[in-house]
């Protein structure tokens, strides 16, 4: 299958490992990945902070760039959530009904990684190998906006060598929330403290999720505490193989130090 990668601005700029892993994983499964280079950002940040008018040009760009593709994937629950639930609203707010309906068409063909793997490609065993103790944090937008449910867990359970441990109070927000982490830094930190306590209680080596943004927040906190627990995007775990692990010795994680 020919699959267009919507890399997301955050993964492109700060967490390319999540995106390169998505490419390697899909190619390993026998699919063709294309990267439309005119893409930039879905505009979620603008919409969520209160700038829908400024977001309009980004929605227009996103729709134009991805309209030609039958299947689009992003390694981010929150960006797919924005495409699915905000783009048409932004267009309608600006009175552009034609853009709104085109946005809805693109949204219907856009999938978060675990949705693409399980629902579209019909696979839960992706042939991955990852010999670590791992806990999974279901990010709010994957969980409640996209309703990815247990798809990521079904994928993780099939990974060879992986010891999956349940995260206590998993469905509680980690406190990232985009600029919430800046505008309400104290409250965000209080939420993060509880999330980190729960992650540490699992005694996992790795905390994974489907959103680089939440992992940046959790990983940044864990790093400051010198816990040694790493945050690794779900795509990187699923892209890891036994051959790769024995290979160049590169840290496939590369998210937090």
């Amino acid at each position, binding site marked *: 299958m020919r699959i267009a990668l919507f890399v997301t601005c955050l993964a492109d700029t700060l967490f390319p490992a999540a995106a390169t892993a998505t490419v390697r994983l899909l190619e390993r499964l026998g699919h063709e990945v294309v990267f439309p280079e005119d893409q930039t950002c879905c505009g979620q940040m603008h919409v969520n902070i209160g700038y829908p008018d400024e977001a309009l040009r980004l929605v227009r760009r996103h729709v134009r760039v991805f309209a030609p593709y039958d299947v689009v994937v992003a390694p981010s629950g929150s960006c797919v959530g924005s495409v699915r639930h905000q783009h048409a609203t932004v267009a309608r707010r600006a009175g552009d009904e034609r853009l709104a309906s085109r946005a809805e068409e693109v949204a219907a063909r856009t999938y978060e990684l675990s949705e693409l793997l399980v629902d579209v490609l019909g696979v839960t065993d992706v042939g991955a190998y990852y010999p670590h103790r791992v806990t999974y944090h279901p990010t709010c*937008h994957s969980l409640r906006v996209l309703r990815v449910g247990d798809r990521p867990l079904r994928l993780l359970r099939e990974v060879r060598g992986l010891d999956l441990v349940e995260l206590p109070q998993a469905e509680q927000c980690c406190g990232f929330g985009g600029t919430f982490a800046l505008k309400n*830094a104290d409250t965000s930190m209080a939420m993060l403290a509880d999330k980190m306590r729960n992650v540490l209680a699992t005694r996992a080596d790795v905390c994974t999720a489907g959103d680089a943004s939440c992992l940046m927040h959790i990983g940044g*906190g864990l790093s400051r505490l010198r816990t040694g627990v790493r945050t690794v995007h779900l795509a990187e775990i699923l892209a890891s193989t036994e051959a790769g692990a024995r290979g160049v010795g590169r840290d496939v994680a590369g998210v937090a130090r």
Partner: protein
Amino acid sequence: MPATAPPGVGHLRGDEPFPAAARRALGDAQLRRNLRHATTTIRGKSGAVIDEVPDWPELRAAARAIKTDTMARLPELLVQLEAAVTEAGGTVHWAADAVEANRIVTELVRVAGADRVMKVKSMATQEIGLNEALEAAGIEPVETDLAELIVQLGRDRPSHILVPAIHRNRAEIREIFLRAMPGVDPGLTDEPAALAAAARRHLRETFLSTRVAVSGANFAVAETGTLAVVESEGNGRMCLTLPETLITVMGIEKVLPTWRDLEVFLQLLPRASTGERMNPYTSMWTGVTPGDGPQAFHLVLLDNGRSAVLADEVGRQALHCIRCSACLNVCPVYERTGGHAYGSVYPGPIGAVLSPQLTGVADNASLPYASSLCGACYDACPVMIDIPSILVHLRAEAPHPRAEAAAMAAAAYTMDHPALYAAAQRAARLSRLAGPRGRGLPPPLSGWTAGRDLPEPPPQTFRQWWAER
């Protein structure tokens, strides 16, 4: 555009923005323990009884449909309600705002010749600051709901819609009673039963000697003119049945078209709010009945900004709220900051959308941002109010800091020009500029580095990697 709630009266605005108020609350370890314990307990109870109901999703959808229909023809339903209440021997008053509502109630109490009123727990009267208005007129209001009584005796403010004293534990409540309850037993313990018994003794005298009561309303039925209050303690029923005069202050959004519509809400409300299968006391009254109960009944229909909310296509669903507080109990922000940080009698997620709409967003500009948009509130809401979408909608209406607006416009422009965007990516060596782990960042970015390290910038962006492969 209809008028918003006037400033200077009532309790819809805080003295400071949410982040500042939240910071103080976060520093109070006892408060955080009390809140965590209480919200965790209510969440557990509520979740269990909701799981028992096989048609919960259908009930929620029915509630939303009834509320949407009600809002679409609110004026005609209110006129119908007025006619039915009048027909049944009651008197209806229309109050455009808090000032008018307080004046109407104060005047009615004076006409009844009373200098004390007993109160049924009511959010509407908290919203308009009725107690303060009555006190200013020389009338003593006595709260009869146990938690409201604790707040009143403690000279405190409510911090939760359903459990106004949620921020207090029983040791603190004992201290308040010993300090402020007249004639209390000095040997009072902090056993819940002992505390409740002390409150009962205190209130019994009030019930038997007060001639005027003031209530709110959970629901009003337009076709019959029936008012309804649901409660757990029975103190409300004492107020609704014993006095000579009953005055009900009701937000105009509380009306329902038909008696039958109550069925849906009486199933949803107790399970979503207190985690009970059915609330212990459901009191309904229609006008007056000669020789039985209050012989004078007044209904004050309160707008106080509600028409302005109704005029907003996205925001109007906030008027669907039945004040169950389920959104507060699941909100991770509320759980850590408590209700006072929101500055309004409506705290938590619903307060973050309702308060700014009632006052005008400029008066409560920090509240739409008092959420991480995690969406737990939407999932918990028994009437399916899409709170995250209203939050985002209100953020677009809120006044923006000039520097932020300029940065966001520049970012949008850059992101709409891929070559410029790629150049900006390469320049974004933020953490290199900021020193080790980004600890030298200026505000507002310093909020991030107070407790989190910045990610190491990767050697190349994804698009560079793609171009080179």
